């Protein structure tokens, strides 16, 4: 007899123009002592199911049919049941530890408040219980940190506090909604280990909602794959990942970048005929052919950047070294990867190379010219044309008030003011074709596109100036895996045909392995190691690289 039973659950959102079915006839059962992974892309309804269990569906959404049975209690039958069970029998862990704790209360106050809401304990008893819990989730010196405020903890520690809050009333069901998405890999593995340990020790039923197949492979006993509100496939994790039956699961698994080998292209199953390699791009006619000379296009020498948070005294002690004496070079036509956790300074380096920031010290040479010392605007324009960038967030990188045509034409007109209207239109349509969008896209506004399509528009805009260097700052981390695979394929194709040099920045090691020829590993603003991709993954030299490789969630771990 399973502990949690979701029967035929449907959740509707009655919108102005249509009804959105966020979940359709979902049937899921979870046993005690088991972790069920709920996996799917954004909008697949995985969080909706999680929220429906504790009746946290926001207006205008409502549970239109089905039932949720916890033990033998029907949660949706009586609103009072939910109040009784929420927090007490069911614990919740949210995605972002920065916002799921109240910043003006100490963690002790928050724990005691939660405990006293549900259990009849005195303040002292509640305190004792809280300290034990904090110890259990691995917070050192729990009794002295009891009176600290959330901002005094790091992200990973905060997520531990959130877990202790979820556990404080001895719940039997734990719902973890993307518990590690906001965390770095090293902390991610600690949190996942903690969840696994607690599941065993406390005999919990756990629903782990995530988009990350690696996380699923390493933690979940069983997995349910969701798409458009439906559960496509459910079963033992190993079977689903190694031998998926449904086409959607197959495409999802094949889109995940493998961590143990380099593949030339991702296999895309779902999209028919659209993903043929485009071998004769029309924009090639406009591209000034460059001979492939394997010499350094970019040289970064002793680059440093410090940020002062003090307005009145420059160069004060408070300055933070975001980048500290970093040197590397990128050869013409290669893909160079920069890997590091958040705060390692990788984006800062990218912004200095594209000249958004001025370095505090050191220099950047592009094509043997020191671009950090250029003062004149006209001189700078020559380099602006050759260095372009693709950003992480496709929602903020396009101006929502301009049509795609205007977005793409801006760089063309700026660098070639005498271009005729016909020529401009032809160029725009070539660019749009090269990023595999339909010609109609040109007259639409960005909000009419999905994240992946917006990223394609970004790429088209970056290509408009015919750059030699393309800086990609986490270009796929905001995207779903299947979209990520398409964008990565596109970037590879474009690079091959246009002989682009790519600086690829990511926190995601498997992605970097697929994309890059050489990789530099960054930690706290310093470069630990630079080597060829295969060498780095097979024979890491620096201990930090070894640690990173060891900790990254591997979808292949399921085979062992």
């Amino acid at each position, binding site marked *: 007899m399973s502990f949690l039973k979701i029967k035929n659950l449907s959740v509707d959102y009655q919108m102005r123009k249509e009804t959105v079915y966020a979940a359709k006839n979902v049937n899921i059962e979870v046993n005690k002592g088991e972790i069920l992974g709920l996996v799917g892309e954004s909008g697949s309804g995985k969080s909706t199911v999680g929220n429906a269990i504790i009746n946290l569906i926001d207006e205008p959404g409502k549970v239109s049919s089905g039932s949720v049975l916890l033990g033998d209690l029907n949660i949706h039958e009586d609103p009072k049941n939910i109040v009784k069970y929420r927090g007490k029998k069911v614990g919740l862990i949210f995605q972002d530890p920065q916002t799921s704790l109240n910043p003006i209360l100490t963690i002790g106050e928050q724990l005691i408040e939660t405990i006293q809401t549900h259990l009849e304990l005195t303040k002292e008893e509640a305190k004792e219980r809280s300290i034990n819990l904090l110890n259990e989730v691995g917070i050192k010196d729990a009794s002295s940190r009891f009176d600290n405020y959330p901002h005094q903890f790091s992200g990973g520690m905060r997520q531990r506090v959130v877990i202790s809050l979820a556990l404080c009333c001895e719940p039997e069901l734990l719902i973890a909604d993307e518990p590690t998405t906001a965390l770095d890999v090293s902390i991610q593995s600690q949190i996942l280990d903690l969840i696994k340990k607690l599941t065993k020790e406390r005999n919990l039923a756990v629903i782990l909602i995530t988009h990350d197949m690696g996380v699923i492979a390493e933690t979940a006993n069983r997995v349910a794959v969701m798409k458009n509100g439906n559960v496509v496939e459910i079963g033992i994790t190993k079977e689903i990942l190694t031998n998926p039956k449904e086409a959607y699961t197959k495409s999802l698994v094949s889109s995940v970048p493998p961590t143990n080998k380099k593949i030339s292209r991702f296999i895309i199953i779902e999209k028919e005929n659209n993903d043929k390699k485009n071998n004769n791009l029309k924009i090639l006619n406009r591209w000034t052919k460059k001979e492939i000379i394997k010499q350094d296009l970019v040289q970064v020498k002793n680059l440093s950047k410090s940020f002062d948070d003090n307005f009145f005294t420059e160069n004060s002690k408070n300055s933070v070294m975001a980048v500290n004496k970093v040197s590397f070079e990128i050869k013409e036509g290669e893909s160079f990867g920069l890997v590091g956790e958040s705060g390692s300074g990788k984006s800062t380096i990218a912004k200095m190379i594209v000249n*958004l920031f001025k370095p505090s010290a050191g220099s950047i040479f592009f094509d043997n010219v020191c671009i950090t010392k250029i003062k004149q605007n006209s001189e*700078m324009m020559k380099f602006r044309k050759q*260095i372009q960038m693709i950003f992480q967030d496709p929602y*903020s990188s396009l*101006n929502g*008030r*301009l049509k795609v045509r205007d977005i793409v034409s801006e*760089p063309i007109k700026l660098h070639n003011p005498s271009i005729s209207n016909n020529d401009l239109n032809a160029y725009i349509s070539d660019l749009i074709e090269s990023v595999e969008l339909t010609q109609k896209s040109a007259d639409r506004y960005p*909000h009419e596109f999905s994240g992946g399509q917006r990223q394609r528009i970004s790429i088209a805009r*970056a290509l408009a100036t015919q750059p030699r260097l393309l800086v990609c700052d986490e270009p796929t981390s905001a995207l779903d895996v299947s979209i990520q695979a398409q964008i990565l394929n596109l970037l590879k194709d474009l690079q091959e045909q246009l002989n682009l040099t790519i600086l690829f920045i990511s926190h995601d090691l498997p992605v970097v392995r697929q994309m890059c020829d050489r990789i530099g590993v960054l930690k706290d603003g310093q470069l630990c190691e630079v080597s060829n991709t295969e060498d780095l993954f097979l024979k890491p030299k620096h201990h930090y690289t070894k640690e990173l490789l060891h900790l990254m969630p591997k979808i292949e771990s399921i085979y062992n």
Partner: protein
Amino acid sequence: MDNNTLTTWSRIKDSDIYFSYKKSPTAIISSLILLIIFFCSFFVELITPYNPFDPSSLSLMEAFTPPSWTDDGLSKFILGTDGQGRDMLSTILYGSRISLIVGFSAIIFSLILGVGLGLTAGYFGGKYEMFVMRLTDVQLTVPSILMALLVDGIARGLISREMHDEMAIYVLIFAIGISEWPQFARVSRAATLVEKNKDYVSASTIIGVSNLVIMFKHILPNILRPILVIGTIGLALAIIAESTLSFLGVGVPPTTPSLGTLIRLGNDFLFSGEWWITFFPAIFLVILAFSINLLGDWMRDTLNPKLNK
């Protein structure tokens, strides 16, 4: 409003703004009232039989006629007449035209000044931003009516007596405009700070787009929403400020009365029983300002995605 929705009528009909407009009786009623007021004020010559500014139409015989529904009322003067026999309704409509012109001009003047300074301050930052923002702080410590009185006083000193009546309306626009810009500067600076850190601005910088183009082509359309909201509420404030100044006697001259001037003129007769001379302009002003404020409130609720959730 939303650039997208203004392109075609069907886009407007499809937009969320139109949808929420249809669902809000407050917005519909207040915008209808405003439309009627605007129409009547600007086409006042076509709809009123009297021109109160034409001395030949004055008839002291008919002075102090009470509203038509009272015992002594005359049906040709619906809201009665003032001390010089001018029809109240016509006078109010003529007056509200002046009030609206002054209000709109003042708000446009302070929008240009405030948004210009706020946008550049937020975009460039540094010492320039410090200077502009401290300037707004200083000005915010001076009540805006005092500021306007000060400007008016200086203008009186500079402009000769004959010129003064002619120039009065421009002085008034300048005085109100100069006293309202700090809030626009603050809001547009804050919005600019948010927008300039978005990637589309970085992308334009990397492409090589000049600062001026980035500010006005890219950032400005994206910060228009909050500015539009406070601009609408500012319009009500400007109209009230105009009336206050005219009431105090430093606004438009009595020869071309605005709503404030009418209230002041009528105020003298309030205690002798001729209440309608001050009451109707006052109530008209209240309805006008109230409608604008309600519309502004609705706009704030609709255009602010945070409140929408």
